[in-house]
C-alpha cells in the first residue's frame, strides 16, 4: 500500500514538473520577441560580422592598382600548412637603375587555409588582411587556388 502511494505520488509530481517545463516552452512559443533565430540567406545584408572576422586572405590594392607587398616571404614562413607561395622577380627601377625584388605572383591556396591569422600578424607592411567573405563553397577545387595580386599592379611608393 505504501509502495502504491509513493508510485502515484511520483507520477503526480512528474506531471507537475512537466507542466512547469511546458509552461516555459509555451512562453517562448507565444512571445515572438524572444526569438533569436536568424533566417540565414535572407539576412545577408544586416548580418553581424566582427571587424576581425577571418574570411580569406586578400591583398589590398588602392585606386592606382598599387599594393604594399614587398615579397619578403614572412607570411610564407609563418604559414603552418604551406597555404601561401610567393613567386618573386627582379625588376630594374627606372629612376635609380637598381635591381629591386618585387612579387610576380602571390599564390594563395584557399582549400588548405585554416584561418589561423598567423600570416596577417607576421606581415611587416600590412599588405594582406582578412576579408569578411565567408561563402567559399565551390563545385570545383581549381578556383580555390588564387593569385592575389591583380594584373599590372605595382608596389606602392614608400613601402620598403
Amino acid at each position, binding site marked *: 500500500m505504501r509502495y502504491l502511494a509513493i508510485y502515484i505520488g511520483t507520477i503526480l509530481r512528474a506531471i507537475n*514538473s512537466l507542466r512547469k517545463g511546458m509552461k516555459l516552452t509555451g512562453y517562448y512559443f507565444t512571445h515572438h520577441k524572444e526569438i533569436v533565430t536568424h533566417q540565414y540567406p535572407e539576412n545577408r545584408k544586416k548580418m553581424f560580422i*566582427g571587424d576581425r572576422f577571418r574570411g580569406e586572405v586578400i591583398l589590398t590594392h588602392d585606386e592606382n592598382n598599387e599594393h604594399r607587398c614587398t615579397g619578403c616571404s614572412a607570411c610564407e614562413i609563418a604559414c603552418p600548412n604551406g597555404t601561401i607561395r610567393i613567386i618573386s622577380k627582379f625588376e630594374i627601377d627606372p629612376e635609380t637603375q637598381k635591381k629591386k625584388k618585387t612579387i610576380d605572383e602571390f599564390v594563395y591556396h584557399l582549400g588548405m587555409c585554416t584561418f589561423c591569422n598567423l600570416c596577417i600578424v607576421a606581415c611587416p607592411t600590412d599588405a594582406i588582411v582578412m576579408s569578411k567573405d565567408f561563402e567559399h563553397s565551390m563545385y570545383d577545387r581549381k578556383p580555390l587556388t588564387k593569385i592575389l595580386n591583380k594584373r599590372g599592379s605595382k608596389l606602392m611608393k614608400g613601402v620598403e
Partner: protein
Amino acid sequence: MNANEEIQDLVEAHEEDFVINIGPQHPSTHGVLHLKVKLQGETVLDVQPHLGYIHRSIEKMCEASTYRNFIYLTSRMDYLSAHMNNQACSMAVEKGMALEIPERTKVIRILMSELTRLASHTLWWGALGLDLGATTPFFIGFRDREEIMDIFEESCGARLTMNYNVPGGVMYDIHPNFQKRVHTFLINFKKHLPEYDTLLTGNIIFQNRMKGVGKISAEDAISYGCSGPVARGSGVSCDIRKWFPYDGYEGAQFNEILETDGDCFSRYMVRVREMYESVKIIEQYIDAIPEGDFQAKTKAVLKLPKGEFYSRVETARGELGVYIISDGSMKPYRIKFRSPNFSNLSALKHMATGGKIGDLVAIMATLDLVIPDIDR
C-alpha cells in the same frame, strides 16, 4: 568438425548474449566513437570502445612545426575548449623561455577561458537534453552559447577555433566593445540560468533517469585517471585552478564544486553549478582589466633551451597536460598531450556494466565526450 558446425556451436554457446555496435556514426556518441556493447537482454555486460576513427596524428604534426605555429593545431583537439588548449601550449612555451606575461594578458586569458567554459557547458547541457529525448534544452542552450560566440568573433576573429593565444600573450588586444557585450551577456545569462533548472534539473522524469545511474566511487575515479566534472562528481577535489593556479587564477574568488554521489545526476549538478561559478569569476574581472601591454616582447623565431617542460590547465572537461621535450632547436623534439577525455572514457565500462542500455546513453552524455580529443 567443419566450419558450419563451429559457427553453430558458437551461436549456441552465446545464445543469450548478443553484441551490438553503437557508432561510429550514431547521434548519441557525439562523433565517431565506436562502442561494442555486449548485452544480455537489455542489461549491459561489457562495453568496448574502439578508437582511431578521427586520428590525425596531431602530436606528430606539432613536432614538424615551429613553436609559434603548432598552437593553432591544438584547437582541433577539444574544439569546445579551444581557448584552454591554446593556453596550455602557450604556457608550456612560456615556461621554457622563462617569459613573464603582462598582467593584462592574464586577466584577458581568464575571461576568455571562463567564457569558453560557459559556451562548452551550455552546449553540453543542450546535447544532454537531446540525448535523453528532450528537444527544447538544445535550443535554450544554443541561444546562450550564440551570444558568447559573437563575443569571440568580435575579439578573436573566429567563433570556434580561435587561435587567440600566442607565446607571450594574446594575438590582439580585446575589442573596444568587449566589456559592454560581456555585461549584456551576463545580464541575459543570469536571467536564463533558472530556466535550466526549470526544464531539466527539477524534472522528476529526468531525475529518475539520472539518479543512481552510472555510479563510480572516488577511489575508482582516481584509479581510472578521471578529472574535471567527472571526478568532482564523485567527490575528488581535482580543480587545477585551485590546486596549481596558473595565469592569474591565484587571485580569483570561486568555489570548487564537489558532489559526493558519483552518479549521473551529481556529474550533471557539478556542471550546472560550475556555470554559476564561471559567471562569478567573469563578474570579478570584467571591470578590473588592468592597463598595459597585451603581449610580452618576443623574438621572431622562438627557441627553447634543452629540457622538458610541462604545463597543465583545467579545460571544460578536466585536466589537460602539455609535455614538451626540447633539443634546443626551433621545433619541439617531442610533444605529448594528456587529454582529459581519454581517461574519462576509460571509466565508461566500469560505469555502464550491469546497467541498462538506455542508461548507457545517459552515462555517455554526462561524461561529455569530445571524440577528436580522445583520438587526437
